């Protein structure tokens, strides 16, 4: 199972999906587009423990984290 983690006021909301299920995969891709379209940045963790920005939906990513748009403090 793969997971999309969205930061929110509760800490985070997690959406798990089976990458082998076409319907769930389509829903995950829709969520990705919706969140990034709303200004969220998507980051994935690489095997080495580093992170990288996901600019498009990656169906093989096991864990994708979305954080909101940044503003100056």
């Amino acid at each position, binding site marked *: 199972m793969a997971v999309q983690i969205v930061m929110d006021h509760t*800490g985070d909301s997690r959406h798990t999906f089976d990458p082998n299920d076409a319907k769930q995969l389509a829903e995950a891709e829709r969520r990705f587009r919706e969140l990034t379209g709303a200004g969220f940045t998507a980051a994935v963790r690489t095997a080495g423990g580093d992170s990288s920005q996901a600019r498009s939906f990656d169906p093989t990513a096991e864990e994708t984290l979305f954080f909101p748009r940044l503003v*100056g403090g």
Partner: protein
Amino acid sequence: MVVWASAWLRERLRKRAIRTLFCRHKAYRTPQGRSIRLLCEWLSPEQRTQFARHGYFDFVGGETGSLYRIYAAASMNVVLLDQRKKENRGLCFLPMGELPVGDVMLAQKLALENCEPEALAVARHFMPRAFSLRPPNFGG
């Protein structure tokens, strides 16, 4: 006597482990606790240790290779370090919305690692002389 002491010690350690487990479980049910857990999941082992010991962690910016330090706070908590790891310049930026502190810190780290120019473009600068944030045991 030795057998009794050993059993007493085992029982005490067992109770302490159970108490720790319950405390963590309770903490992880709160937004702050959940956000700190998420942050720790995304830190490297070295950063987790540094965070637990000092209340901050260091990392390298993805574009410039600059060294940054993030303190456990939700604002005015990001510092650019010089080559001697001295605090050089403070950067104040944060993700939109009411997010718990761990989420804010993780978003700041990921932003500087993966979209550093965008983060620097919105950040406001400050002099980091007044830093006294050293909350212990955040990293568990």
